[in-house]
Every structure is written in C-alpha cells, then in structure tokens.
C-alpha cells in the first residue's frame, strides 16, 4: 500500500435522481502533481468535495485511504487534520482582513485567547516565502490581485501542514504571467514533498505541469496514465469519448441575411481592470441561424454576450450592428429595444423572480406592451401569458403559481418564454439547458428550431459539447477571450472543438 499517499476506492455518490459518481477509483502517489480532467459535469468537483469532507462520510459509498489508513471525514476540519487542503475556484479569503490574518484565520497563534500578533506576522512571512509572495503580510487582501490572492490561499493551506493540496481550476481567473508564477510555485511545492491534485480542463497546462493524469467522464474513471505515456489528443478523446446519440432534433434550414454583427469587441474584468476577458472578438449571425459558442468555463463567453446585451459590469468597447445599423447598447433596456433578448445562465440568480408567479415573470421584460399610460391591461397580459404557456408547454398548475414551485425545466421555459414575448430578432441563450432533464432539453431544442424557422438569429453559449455539435449551424470556439476556431456544422467534431477550446490549433 505504500505506493500511494491517497486512494479513493469505488466511490459512488448519488444525488436525487442523478448518479454523480459511479465506482470511481482515484490513486495518487506521494509528491506527484496529479491532474484530474473531465468535461464540465464529469464529477471532478463532486469527487474532491468527498475528499475534502464537504460531503461527509456516510453520504457516499466507497473508501478513502490515506497512507494506508482508511479515513472517515465528517467535515472539512477532519479532512484538514488528515493533511488535505482544497483551494476552490471561488477564493474564500476574508477581503477586509490582512494577508497574515487570513493565513492564520481560525488558527491564530495565541495565549489564553490573546493573539500574539508578532508571532502571527513573523510566521506569515515564512509561509508566504514558500509561495514566493514578497509583500507585506499586513496588506489587506482586498488590495491584492486575484493571482496574489490565490497564493495567499496556498500559503494558508501550507500553514495548516497540508500534505495533499487540491487546486480546483486554479488558472481560470489568472492572467498568463500569473499562471506561469503559479506553475513555478507548484514545482517548488513538489520539490518540498507536497502532493498536488490539479483540476483543470486546460490540456496544455496539464501537460506542462502534471506527472500523472486521471480522466473522468460522466461520473466514471476512464483511465489513469503517466503524462509521458499519453498525448493531448488521447486525453481529449477520453474526455469527450461518448457516442453522440440522436438527442438533438436539429433541422437544416436556409439561413437569411446577416442580421447581427459584432466588430472588435473587448471586455475587461471588473475586479481586475487591466485584465481583458474578451480580446478583440468579431463575429456575425444570420437570420434563422444558430451560432454555437463553445469554450471552457472562464473563457469569456458569458462576459462577451452579457456585455453586448448591456448587462455586464466590466468596461467594454467595440461595435455592434443590427441589420447593418450601428447601435449603442448601454443597458439591457437598450438591448431589448433593439430586438435583442438574452436567456441568462443561472436562471435563479439572473433570470427569475422566484417569489413571484409565472405570469409576472413571463411579462417582466415586455410589460410596456400591456400598458396604456402605465396601467397594465391585466386581461391582455393573461391572454399572452396563457398563449406562451401553451406554446412552450410549461407545466404549471396556474399562471399564479410561484415559479419557485416549478421544476427546473419548467422554470427554464419560463425564462425562455419571457424573452420570446419580447419577439426578439436575436436571441442569446447562455447555457440554455443546464441542470434540466433530458425531456425538457429536447423541448428547448424544439423551441429553438421553431424560432430558427421563423428567422430568429440564435446565439447559444454552451459548455456541453454534444449540444453545441448537435444544434449549431456554425460554431465559434473561444479560448481565453479570443476566437480560436470557427467550424461549420458538418466539419465540426468534439476533438476539434476541444482542441481549439484548450488553446490548440
């Protein structure tokens, strides 16, 4: 057993209605950097949540063995005690506190409850040196860039004597230089005997840093291979290698003239204004065309589209043309008035007023149609809502049911319905089928086809490759804010898209 520092054996984890992990085996050797790859939703995060005690012992089947001993983690603290530390995609630092305070948060050197500040800052320095962070430990975290914040997180993990460090998409929010620094730090840590589990779907990074790679797909382990015995293409094939079934009712339809055109569009990170999230992107869409936008999480797809829609907080510049006319869109209201609509991702956060009823949600973006001098014609409103409920077959007991009480698929249809009522020329759909079941997905696709026939231009952002391939007439692939590939429906393949999305050509 001494071969492995960590073994996860036959891990199975079920959520209501979904088997997220099925008999997963994951073995890590001491002192290696072990990459964990897979598409969005393959089960990487679930597996790591089990390892870090977020899902406690008893909520899953299987065993976790560290240094030959079986472990039962009841919470995060118990996994930390066993030497496991996780650094999440969303950093969990307290921004108002200093770097030193954050490193020792909950673990402050003290005597009878009185903090020894000199010792705290002295030791902080030591841990910061381990991650090559040369700043004053009394700096507030809020004043640091994302890259530095991440290093503080790593220092914090090291201060807890972590032996196994899990990094979940650490490079997603970093600039190129910051990624290089991160790579350096990881190599140093490796030399100091720290084991790293590196979750990423950026293949080039994995091949740069990792010793071993494990691929997960649909909740199952596909393979574990030393990095020098595999190739980028093989890893990509393992990540996407499921058969495309006939789940996509795509129709061939003559596209019309170009209706929507974006030229040289740039978007900046609101939290890190030097960083470009979208870099000089240009594209166009035709009437009756579905343009798929593929790319990895954090590639800048949502930022691009919501910025065009006037709903993104970061700075942006570039030109937008509708029907050949240049338009200025400064707010979602401008966008709606220009015939744009956007089905946002995360319907609960951005799409719906959950505590309000179906009807009020449906007409929210189009209220002016039902108003005469500001007064709502309730019957007109009901009439239209009823029509859209029937067209989209939204299953709801009544128009006055709170959307909170609908299933995910029906909630999503309410969001789609809201935007259809504005009769858009251009419909942007950001992850239109995330978190809904197969049947509801099919219905959403059928709605898209119907709109296509009516000449609506659809721009669909999706992280699900089969969906992108199955529904799009044309596919743009975005990698780190730039367009890195454009494919017609019949020339696209999973491998080509995955390669372009991970930065290859």
């Amino acid at each position, binding site marked *: 057993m001494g071969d492995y520092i960590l073994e996860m054996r036959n891990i199975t984890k079920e959520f209501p209605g979904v088997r997220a992990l099925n008999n997963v085996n994951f073995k890590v050797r001491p002192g290696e950097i072990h990459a964990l790859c897979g598409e969005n939703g393959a089960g990487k995060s679930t597996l790591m949540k089990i390892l870090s005690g977020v899902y406690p012992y008893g909520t899953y089947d299987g065993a976790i063995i560290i240094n030959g001993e079986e472990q039962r983690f009841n919470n995060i603290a118990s996994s930390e005690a066993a030497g496991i530390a996780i650094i999440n995609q969303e950093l969990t630092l307290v921004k108002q506190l200093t770097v030193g305070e954050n490193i020792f948060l909950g673990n402050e050197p003290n005597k009878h409850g009185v903090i020894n500040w000199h010792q705290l800052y002295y030791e902080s320095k030591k841990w910061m040196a381990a991650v090559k962070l040369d700043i004053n430990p009394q700096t507030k975290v809020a004043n640091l860039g994302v890259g530095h914040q991440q290093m503080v997180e790593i220092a914090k993990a090291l201060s807890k004597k972590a032996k196994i460090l899990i990094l979940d998409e650490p490079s997603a929010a970093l600039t190129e230089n910051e990624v290089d620094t991160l790579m350096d730090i990881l190599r140093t840590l490796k030399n100091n005997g720290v084991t790293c589990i590196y979750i990423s779907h950026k293949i080039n990074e994995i091949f740069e840093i990792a010793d071993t790679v494990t691929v997960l797909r649909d909740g199952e382990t596909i393979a574990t291979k030393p990095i020098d015995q595999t190739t980028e293409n093989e890893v990509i094939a393992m990540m996407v290698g499921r058969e495309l079934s006939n789940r996509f009712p795509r129709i061939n339809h003559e596209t019309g003239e170009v209706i929507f055109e974006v030229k040289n569009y740039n978007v900046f990170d609101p939290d890190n204004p030097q960083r470009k999230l979208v870099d000089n992107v240009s594209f166009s869409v035709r009437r009756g065309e579905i343009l798929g936008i593929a790319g990895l999480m954090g590639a800048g797809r949502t930022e691009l589209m919501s910025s065009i829609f006037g709903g993104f907080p970061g700075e942006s510049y570039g030109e937008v043309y509708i029907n050949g006319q240049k338009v200025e869109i400064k707010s979602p209201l401008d966008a709606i008035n220009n015939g744009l609509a956007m089905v*946002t991702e995360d319907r609960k956060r951005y799409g719906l007023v959950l505590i309000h009823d179906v009807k*009020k949600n449906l007409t929210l973006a189009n209220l002016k149609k039902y108003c005469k001098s500001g007064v709502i014609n309730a019957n007109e409103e009901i009439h239209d809502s009823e029509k859209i409920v029937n067209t989209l077959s939204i299953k709801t007991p009544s128009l006055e049911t709170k959307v909170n009480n609908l299933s995910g698929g029906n909630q999503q249809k309410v969001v789609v319905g809201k935007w259809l009522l504005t009769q858009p020329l251009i419909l942007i759909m950001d992850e239109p089928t995330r978190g809904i079941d197969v049947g509801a997905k099919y219905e959403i696709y059928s709605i898209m086809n119907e709109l296509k026939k009516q000449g609506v231009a659809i721009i669909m952002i999706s992280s699900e490759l089969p969906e992108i391939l199955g529904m799009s007439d044309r596919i743009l692939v975005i990698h780190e804010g730039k367009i890195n590939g454009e494919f017609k429906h019949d020339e696209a393949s999973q491998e080509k898209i995955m390669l372009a999305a991970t930065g290859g050509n």
Partner: protein
Amino acid sequence: MSVVRESTESTIVARKSLFSRLNARFDLRAYTMIIALVIIWLFFTILTEGRFLTPRNISNLARQVSITAILAIGMVMVIVTTHIELSVGSILGLTGGLAGILQVWYHVSTPVAILIALLCGALIGAFHGYWVAYHNVPAFIVTLAGLLAYRGILLGITKGQTVAPLAPSFKVLSSGYLALVPGIILSSIIIIGLVLTSILSRRSKIKYGFKVKPLYFEILTTIVYCGLIILATYVLYQYEGIPYPVIVVLVLAIIFSFITNNTKFGRQVYAMGGNVEAARLSGINVRRRTLVVFVLAGLLASIAGVLTTARLNAATITAGDGAELDAIASCVIGGTSFLGGVGSIPGAVLGALVMASLDNGMSMMNVEAYWQPIIKGSILLLAVWLDIKTKKK
C-alpha cells in the same frame, strides 16, 4: 411532482373582480390578520364594557390610525425594494412644521402652505433616492442621516417654539367631518364604482374568453362589499360623520394599491425587490424606479406632516418623533417582507389599524403609559414569529 398537471386545462385562470385584484396580495395572511384584528377589538370591547366599540371611539380610532397608515403606505414600497426609510418621522415633523410656520408667521394661505410642504417632502425623498440609487449609499445610512438632520432643521426654523394657532381652514383638515349629504354621496360613488368595475371586468373577461365565476357569486360578493361600506358609513354617522383624515387615507390607499398592482411602475418595483439582477437584465431602470419610490415615501410623509400639524393646531418640534418605527411595524405586521418583493398596501393599512387599536384600547383601559410600548413591541415580535412559523409549514 405535485405541481405538474396538464397545462391546457390548468392554465385556465378564473379572473377576479377589480376589488379583489386591488387586494391581490391579500390572501390567506390577510384573513388571519383581519381575524386577529377582530379578536383584538372583541378583547378591548369586553374589557372596556363596550366603550371601545362605540361610534365615537371608532371615529377616534379611524382618525388616530390615519397618520401611521399614510406613512406605512409609503414605507411598504421602500421595504419592498429591500431598502428602508428611517427619516419619515423627521420629514413629517419638518414639512408639517414648515407648513405651520408659513401660515402662522408669514400668513401664507392654507393651500399654498400645504403645497410647499408637500413639495418639500417630495424633494427630500428625491434627495434620499439620489444617494441610494446613484451612489449606492445604504438607505439605512442615508435616511438615518436624514432622521437626525431634519429634526435639527425643524428645531432651528421653529426656534424651539410651538408655532400656533393655525387658520380654521387648515385645522379643519384633521378635525373636520364630512357632512351627512356629501358623505352619502361619497359612499354612493364608491358603491357605484364598485358595481361598475365588477360589471366591466366581467365583460372584459368574457371578451377574452376567460372562465368567469358564476353570476350569482359575483353579485353576492359585490353585495357583501357594498354592505360593508354602508355599515361603516352608518357607524361613522352615528357620531359626527366621516373624519377628513380617513378620507385622505382611503383615497391614498386606493391610489397606491392601484399603482402597486395595476401599473408598470408597481410591477417593476416588486420585481426589483424580488430579484434585482433579474429585473435589471429584463430591462428595468432600477435606479430611476428606486428614486421614485423614495420620492413617493417623502411625499406621503409630508402629507402626514400636514395632517399632524392640523391635528395639533400647531407646528411642534416633537411632531412625528418615532413615527417611522410605527410605520415600519405596521408594514411588517401587514405582511411586508424585509427580503423584498412582497408586501401590500391594504396589509400595511390593516397593520397600522392593529397598532392604533392597541394604543387606543390600552388608553381606554387606563393601562399605564410605560406598558403600552412594551406590549406593542411584544406583539410585533409575536406577529412576525407566527408568520415565520406558519410559512415553514
């Protein structure tokens, strides 16, 4: 899934009459509140051996509730947008004081003095809204600053004195009663309006092909509502008639119920409160709406200010002191949620009535003054706790 049903059959919605639409957010919770109110009234009636339910006391109670109710109407909209307005008591004092000073010291006529006071209230509201909406300063801070500052300004402009007396035309705003004949005309107008709207609404529904309730049912509900109006009018005329402040409250409650339920502005305000991001992305100008909500709250506070000055027949430095807390309590008892997006005007008015009934009843029972805020505070806590309990089930 229990919610899934055949969509075609299930989406047929029975429409409600205008009156019930005005009370759209009035459902189960409102009925429990009405029951609670009836219990409180019965309780006091028994303990005061019937004195509580005399026409004279009802008339008094209606007058007492008016100031809090008007403030609560404005407060509902502020709380629905997840903000708070702590300075309405001070705005009440300042604008009321201003109207008093203008009339007593500068001999300005009643309508002009009132108009200036209302304008002042709306401007103060706009000032608050500007800071909250365009500079993202928390409403709690902006209006706390206002609470302190306006009380100071009031103290300064009145030079610490009580400014009295006002012209009879001003005083009558609070102490006056609508005479019998105009009162009957008013009630008749309301009844005719009620009947007409139910007929029109029924016709419109049939035009749109919606299912309507059986005719006898609609006639019956209309008769019940009309009966209640006639009863209320009758009781009030057993004493002196309908007090003017009650008319003001009724008119404002109807106007603002209409605004919140039947206008684009109202709908958008509630949507903002429910999910400000979704509202913004649906094309709602969140900042402008927020500004208007504060303007309305300021305006309503100044109306309450004018009525207070009229009632006291003087501008005093303590007018409206602590009134914001009564207004907030009324909203909360009336079902307005601090999480935003939920709350109703009739609910808040009923909440104000609960608070005023407690004050009035306890005074009649000669409960010692220090007990009254203690009991009101306890009932507020109890009401919200019960609400949370029942919501969980």
